């Protein structure tokens, strides 16, 4: 088999895009990321085998046939990925029905543990704040970026005077923006 640059580039690109999407908070993007990662893995499996004639007895010499095993593995993997994606979609839909959000939810336990030991004098950590605590007007969601009067940080500073913040103006998620 002649080495080809197409497979590695394709697989690496799909993995990169998949990981990027998987890190998003919106569950639909996570699902898309998972699908890309699944396809990347299937291509990786396929690229491990020898290419050649269809592996059907009688149509070609066995030495010229493609290796059938990875194809069988990929078929199995595709079926599994398909089933799990369908289930994940159902769960995302259920999440949307329940709380009108399709995002990875805040870790309540983490917050409770943090709230249990408030150390006096600690500055408020902006990473602990949830953009969901802001009212709709205070969020940057759904507006043109950088327009006049869109100084979210300024308003945030008014609301939480002791927060030294610079990264809270990220829109929470696409899902909440709708």
């Amino acid at each position: 088999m002649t080495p080809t640059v197409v497979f590695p580039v394709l697989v690496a690109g799909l993995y990169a895009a998949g990981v990027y999407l998987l890190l998003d908070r919106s569950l639909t993007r996570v699902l898309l990321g998972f699908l890309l990662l699944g396809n990347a893995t299937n291509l990786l499996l396929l690229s491990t085998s020898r290419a050649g004639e269809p592996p059907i007895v009688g149509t070609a010499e066995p030495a010229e046939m493609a290796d059938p095993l990875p194809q069988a593995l990929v078929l199995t993997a595709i079926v599994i990925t398909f089933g799990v994606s369908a289930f994940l979609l159902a769960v995302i839909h259920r999440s949307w029905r329940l709380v009108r959000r399709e995002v990875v939810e805040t870790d309540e336990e983490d917050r409770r543990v943090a709230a249990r030991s408030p150390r006096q004098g600690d500055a408020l950590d902006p990473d602990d704040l949830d953009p969901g605590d802001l009212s709709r007007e205070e969020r940057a969601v759904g507006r043109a970026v950088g327009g006049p009067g869109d100084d979210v940080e300024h308003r945030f500073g008014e609301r939480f005077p002791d927060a030294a913040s610079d990264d809270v103006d990220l829109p929470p998620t696409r899902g909440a923006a709708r």
Partner: protein
Amino acid sequence: MIRVLAPLPVLLPLAGAALSLVLGRFARTQRALSTLVLGAVLAVSVALLLLADADGAAAVAVGDWPVPQAIMLVVDRLSALMLVVAFTVGFGVLLFAVGQGWADGAERSPVSIFHPTFLVLMSGVAFAFLAGDLFNLYVGFEVLLTASYVLLTLGGSAPRIRGGITYIIVSLLSSLLFLAAIGLVYAAAGTVNMAQLSIRLAELPAGTVVLLEALLLVAFGIKAAVFPLSAWLPDSYPTAPAPVTAVFAGLLTKVGVYAIIRTQTLLFPGEALTTVLMWAALATMLVGILGAIAQTDIRRMLSFTLVSHIGYMVFGVALGTVAGLAGAVFYVVHHIVIQATLFLVAGLVERKGGSTAVPRLGGLAAASPLLAVLYLVPALNLAGIPPLSGFLGKLGLLQAGVAAGGVLPGLLVAGGVVTSLLTLLAVARVWTRSFWRPVGQDIGADTARAAAAADDSRADSGPDPDVPGEDDEPAAHGASSSGLGTTRAGARAAAWERRTAVATAHDELAADGVRGRAEERLPGALVGATGLMVAVSVALTVIAGPLYALADRAAADLLERTPYQEAVYGEGPAESAEGVP
């Protein structure tokens, strides 16, 4: 004989699941069917263990294909032992679930889907233990994981969906890593059959082998919840119904541990990653148990001890000696039983006390002395109080660590002792507070702080996830989601008030639950099933001698590797004629 019996642990539950799905309308028949199937498989597993111990390992080529190409089911001492323990726990948990169905009637939860899914889960577990090649190990994992997704999100309430999503995404990622590793293994060695791999991997360059080993370890490490790949577990397990959490906690992580044991001994007998594994074991033990101490909820506390004690097993595997592996195998057996039992007891506590949050509990020892005994015995066993099996397993591992010598094993021995003591602290705190604190006693700051914290989180998320009172949740969530709808319209203050009101109402309902249930006797079927599991855990201590000897023989087999290879290839493992494709 083994060849006839070996496929049954996979096939019987699958067939049972299909039949059970058809019988969805007849709850009683369904329960009887699941019990019958799991009981039969348990008997088959015991027979397999006795045969494998007497005659040595054996393999079945499914469909009678020639050996390296066929799908192999391999029964050796380790896989047979794991099967017996898995189906013992599965059977006990099923009895608990059946008891719960009797006690509550069918209207409380969608039981009709529980039984088929549970049987599919057990089939996947059995397939993972028996699979003779990496790809079928992957298929086994997928079968059990897909069933576990359904079980974890059973009923689809908000806390379960929240916990379930984390669990599903993390599991999917680990499965993809596993699949990619299989692809690379195939590219490097031209086979996925484990017996064949154990011969061919030795001929590959060391760097390639270490890469493959690391990839597989990461994939299995996520499933087994080895630190730093364990953060998903305490967030997802506690939300599920009691029997589901019990079987997850007992079995699913141990399937990952089994895969680590199998691949580390059979495929990668070298010591390339031993140091990494040791450090991971130490970190798992300590981080897990420190997390457990910080918890105020019994189920979350148990989830963290689960993570922590995985460290002991990884320690035994990393030692790579017969004593270390024997200790790990024995500890896996002990821990599957004990962790499942404790989660069942937590289910009983929730019934009796209305909650598993320790600040809300009190006076359980007076309310139900039997429940107190059911908690105390496995809790002490978990912490490793002599002469219970937890003590024996830890002792074996610590002895193996001392025998291995060196700084790092010494550090791990110290870490193991500290973890054991801290486990005792964690379970004893639950014991004194939930069981012995008088009802209604004001415990001041503790409760106040917990309540304040709970209020904080509630303000953000609707009802308190600490109180999975199943009957009142749908109403509360309906209200809180319409509250969010108002937020979207802009009237945030109104929404806030409404959500607080919902939360208060939810609290009152929960309090009613406490008052209502405390008078009620615990259903006999549930107590019986839990008592059976406690009895099994005590029985592990009684038969510890023969069991440890069996674990020793299994460990010797694992390190020798030839019994497995001979089982697959027949006498004299010869490299097969066909070359690398």
